[in-house]
């Protein structure tokens, strides 16, 4: 287990955790505003296919990332119109958007299967990004650093800013926020758009950085893991960062254990732990008011209509 190999494992871990972190962070904002968006997987796939299609057509990965964000927002807007303006059931609409995203991305992506692009590269120059040890910090691409910056930004936004306070108010008690005069639906629209943008970006990370190609269902269910992650993190960005890297570590180590021929513990047990941890958190939450800080936003999932 040389330092070189440990650094390689760490790099793989970071790459596996980043899309989870992005999608979960977006969903955290959405849920803080009181909307439950189960369509994260569909939005990630929209972002993945749009990002790849743009990057392949124009040769620019940067444009691909922007296209992915746009696609994520567009898909999220469908969800927003249905649940916010038309007050459709949020759970059912979210699931429908997931299925829609899977199908639409498969259709659009059909012409791009079997193609490849230049992978998203590291930000820092080769001296730092390819150094055997320093690359653990400097060898990542821009999306990784962006995801970390976003965690900080979202955390400050929610706890230290007025708009963040308003967002939280809308999520805790939409009726009161409306009575004070805040535009509840507009705020929720903004939150859903932000969630879609980050989900699209997270999905594009698959098709532009992890495996620079398009394939059906490329995200392979990571959107669902992101949803579980938001609950696991108890709607707090700091814990979300920890949780994302924990989940990513578990996914990475499962394969490492398989490759190393570990037989005393079935690697599949490692794969189960994120879900077991999420169930544990949900149980703790429902045990009572004593663990008040772990409560979900009070209006989560409830439709709001000004009356």
């Amino acid at each position: 287990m040389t330092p070189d190999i440990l650094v390689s494992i760490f790099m793989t871990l970071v790459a596996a955790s980043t899309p989870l972190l992005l999608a979960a962070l977006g969903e955290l904002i959405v849920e803080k505003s009181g909307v439950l968006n189960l369509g994260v997987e569909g939005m990630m796939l929209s972002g993945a296919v749009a990002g790849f299609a743009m990057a392949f057509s124009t040769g620019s990965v940067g444009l691909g990332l922007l296209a992915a964000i746009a696609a994520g927002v567009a898909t999220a807007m469908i969800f927003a119109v249905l649940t916010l303006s038309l007050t459709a059931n949020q759970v059912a609409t979210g699931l429908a958007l997931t299925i829609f995203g899977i199908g639409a991305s498969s259709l659009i992506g059909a012409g791009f299967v079997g193609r490849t692009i230049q992978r998203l590269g590291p930000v820092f120059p080769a001296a730092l990004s390819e150094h055997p040890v320093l690359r653990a910090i400097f060898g990542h691409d821009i999306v990784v650093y962006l995801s970390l910056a976003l965690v900080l930004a979202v955390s400050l936004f929610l706890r230290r800013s007025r708009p963040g306070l308003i967002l939280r108010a809308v999520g805790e008690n939409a009726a009161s926020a409306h009575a004070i005069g805040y535009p509840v639906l507009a705020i929720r629209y903004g939150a859903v758009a932000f969630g879609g943008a980050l989900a699209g970006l997270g999905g594009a990370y698959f098709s532009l950085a992890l495996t620079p190609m398009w394939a059906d269902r490329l995200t392979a269910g990571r959107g669902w893991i992101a949803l579980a992650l938001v609950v696991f993190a108890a709607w707090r960005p700091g814990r979300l960062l920890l949780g994302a890297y924990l989940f990513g570590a578990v996914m990475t180590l499962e394969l490492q254990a398989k490759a190393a021929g570990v037989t005393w513990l079935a690697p599949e047990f490692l794969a189960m732990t994120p879900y077991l941890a999420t169930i544990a958190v949900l149980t703790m939450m429902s045990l009572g008011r004593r663990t008040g800080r772990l409560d979900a936003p009070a209006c989560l999932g409830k439709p709001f209509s000004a009356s």
Partner: protein
Amino acid sequence: MTSIITRRRFNFGAGAAAATLPLIGAGARAQAPLGVGFIYVGPIGDHGWSWTHDQGRLALEKEFGAKIKTSFIENVAEGPDAARALRQLAQAGNQLIFATSFGFMNPTVQVAKQFPKLKFEHATGYQRAENLATYNARFYEGRAVIGAIAGHMSKSGQAGYIASFPIPEVVMGINAFTLAARKVNPNFKTKVIWASTWYDPAKEADAAKALIDQGADVITQHTDSPAALQAAEQRGVFAFGQASDMKAFAPKAHLTAIVDDWSGYYIKRVKEVMDGSWKTGDVWGGIKDGMVRIAPFNDAVTPAARAAAEELQKGIVAGTLHPFTGELKDQKGVLRLKAGETASDEMLSKMDWFVDGVQA
């Protein structure tokens, strides 16, 4: 009253007469194009397994032109849904239907019973019927060739093998690869990760990375996407393409590939259906029959590796070299082949044991 009944009878009679018109026309349409249907387990754009079957289908169109009409359904999940897809093709008027994956076996047997007049072909299976034939290619011959190359090219003496499911097809590939590599390097080790899927690019890439982290410097796979090759390229190790030449995805890492070529077999079978000589049976063609080919070598392949690969190919084609030749013991020490004995097709199709050097 009498007139109404008469009118009804008249309408009935006219309707019956009209219904016979298509049958009269059918005689004139005896030269209608032969319908040939395919179901694929993955997307044709996987550039691997399903893509090569589709290339075979395109070869049929090129060869027979207007005399046949092909159709396909891709991304058919192995299991009950395959029965639906097969029935769809059967009811659409296809006379010859190819089911191109092992997991389609039971649905194909079922549907073949329901449509006794149609002909079915199942790839890599072992159940046959009056109207159901099986076919396969001796990929293990290709595995032996790339194993020989891996033995020469690997500095760490370890290969990473991304496998799908522990079915005999996959197991014999792992064994053939390892045996050939061990002839060059007696301490060669093959580390296997079971991906439990034929196609999941992200998982294949991560599995490749994990194997490389654990010491493998040659990557090969029995899954269908080029993702593992991309990971190998990124890490600067060597890899082999699966089912098709995947050089475009990994120009430096890709040494060669086992290329599947189904066109010869498909053309032969369609000709047999057309002239009425189609019979059920089991075809298992290899390098000699052109069903398995080795892609052009990368410049990085050393002369020694090249020579070993070419010698092995010549021997296989001539019948003088068999990748599974005794004396051969499996990992647990059980004697599987006596000295000089070669593995029978039956032993291969039931293989569920690994040779020394395989960590599975």
